[in-house]
């Protein structure tokens, strides 16, 4: 299929590729995304050290596992959001999707719908919200932020309307089982967390789809000219984001043993903060699952450390806002550096 190369280059080809990856390793230190992940590791290490000194309970295996378990819902939504933002998209409706999912699940179970059917319906709700977002952005060409702000408002309102703003107690063995089972000291949630990130890292780094996501976010027109199925990829990413939020809604219903229309409120901010703090650029083309993972860990440690130090949750909200602003400012700085390079 490919042309015969000139003999002089042919004999060295294998060697060159090796040499070549070595050369890129030294360049790596100048790569902003590499620096950013190093920076995140430093911040995480600093926070762990700080809280370890401040509280005797922090640096214990059981506490760290609890941090992981309580970060799972955020983590599960942050992974597809990373792909979405890298592709140049954006989804702020995830909090609302959690709300409509958990409220629907509560109502369906209260109405006597069997567990499996109720969960399928809820997953279809997430899929539907994702498809609606995708249609607005991809077909009707609405700005992603505005489109998903709109659906966010619709489904938040709908969740409050359906539940009359009330928190409903949900007692269900299956939901308890998928969220509270322990394997030794490790919560089943931690396994979900690990599973989602292993799959996401493999997707990002080794598959055709992963490459397409970066190409679409980097230069959508060039991607179109290269014949990539841009719309299908965008649809898939918005749907993945919606689905992850409805899964999050199901898990939260089990974790909290209740369904409240307000349970998704904090997630809008924390999901976007995790992805941007993790190094994704709002203009698309840059970001990584590893970065998001580190950012999720930082947010989880912050939350856990603050509650161990008995700081009120309002302080956490303030910290989250600061983290988001720092992340966005840093993103701007990196972009300026890239443009100069």
């Amino acid at each position, binding site marked *: 299929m490919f042309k015969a*190369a000139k003999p002089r280059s042919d004999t060295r*080809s294998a060697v*060159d590729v090796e040499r070549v990856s070595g050369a890129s390793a030294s360049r790596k230190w100048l790569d902003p995304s590499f620096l950013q992940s190093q920076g995140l590791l430093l911040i995480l290490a600093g926070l762990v050290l700080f809280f370890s000194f401040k509280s005797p309970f922090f640096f214990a295996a059981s506490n760290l596992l609890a941090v992981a378990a309580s970060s799972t819902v955020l983590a599960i939504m942050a992974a597809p959001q990373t792909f979405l933002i890298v592709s140049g998209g954006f989804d702020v409706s995830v909090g609302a999707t959690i709300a409509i999912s958990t409220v629907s699940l509560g109502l369906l179970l209260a109405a006597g719908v069997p567990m499996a059917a109720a969960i399928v319906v809820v997953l279809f709700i997430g899929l539907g919200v994702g498809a609606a977002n995708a249609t607005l952005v991809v077909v009707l060409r609405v700005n992603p932020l505005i489109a998903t702000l709109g659906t966010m408002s619709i489904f938040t309102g709908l969740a409050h309307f359906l539940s009359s703003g009330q928190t409903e107690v949900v007692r269900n063995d299956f939901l308890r089982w998928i969220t509270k089972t322990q394997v030794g000291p490790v919560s089943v949630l931690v396994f979900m967390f690990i599973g989602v990130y292993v799959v996401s890292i493999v*997707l990002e780094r*080794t598959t*055709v789809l992963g490459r397409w996501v970066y*190409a679409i976010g980097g230069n959508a027109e*060039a991607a179109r000219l290269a*014949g990539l199925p841009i719309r299908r990829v965008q649809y898939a990413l918005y749907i993945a984001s919606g689905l992850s939020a409805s899964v999050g809604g199901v898990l939260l219903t089990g974790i909290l043993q209740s369904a409240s229309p307000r349970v998704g409120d904090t997630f809008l901010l924390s999901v976007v903060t995790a992805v941007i703090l993790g190094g994704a650029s709002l203009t698309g083309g840059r970001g990584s699952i590893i970065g998001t993972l580190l950012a999720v860990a930082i947010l989880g440690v912050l939350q856990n450390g603050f509650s161990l130090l008995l700081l009120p949750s309002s302080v956490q909200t303030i910290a989250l806002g600061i983290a988001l602003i720092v992340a966005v400012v840093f993103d701007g700085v990196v972009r300026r550096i890239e443009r100069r390079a």
Partner: protein
Amino acid sequence: MTVAPAPVPVLEVQNLIKRFGAIEALKGVSFTLGRGEILGLVGDNGAGKSTLLKIVSGALEPTAGSVMLNGEHLEFGNPAQHRQAGIETVYQDLGLVGNLDIAGNFFLGREVRVRDHRGPFAFLNNRAMRLQARDAIARLHITIPGSVAQKVNSLSGGQRQAVAIARAAFWKRELLLLDEPTAALGVQATAEVGHLIMQIAKEEGVPIIVVSHDIAEVLKVADRVVVLRQGETAAQLVGAETSASEVVGYITGTIGPQAGPAG
């Protein structure tokens, strides 16, 4: 002055019209291209050269008219289909993705997959792609320091152009479209691209349309020259029989149907 079409034209462009709102970028352009032919497409800024190339490459849909490749109509507005049919293009703005590496750009949309699996979840065979991209660039004799694993963002304008040319030369089967391929290249590299164009057309028999503002370079390689003027064909000239001053005359309108008293 005009040339009889080759018996079996590889490319046949018929009466292409393209409007952008009120602007009529192409007002009914027709020409044919035979095997191994090199067509120089020239004209002033805004004459419609890039628009014409983009329609042939599938990037743009014409308002009217048709394009046939080897006697078969091509659908419009679907670059993937045109590429599948064997048409490769170096766009004026190159069509490279800056945040992917050279090899990634080379194989974008046509990735080498582990065990040739289909579908978006197939694994990439990065090693194979890097080796092939490296060899294809070496064939162009344009040196790009570092590896094909470096991001296109980090390359100079000329190096990027070289990557785009090497990519198109690697994939072309039926037709190669070059929109100002040497605009950012140095003297040496421009000569290399000239050699490459001759080799592809004359040894491999693949016809080429090359857009350029460098009339001397065009006349060095072109069998025929089509001059576009405000979206219309001002002239079709035989490369060996024309001169730079004649071509420039048609470009500027001092020669031709609407010309004033020509000196």
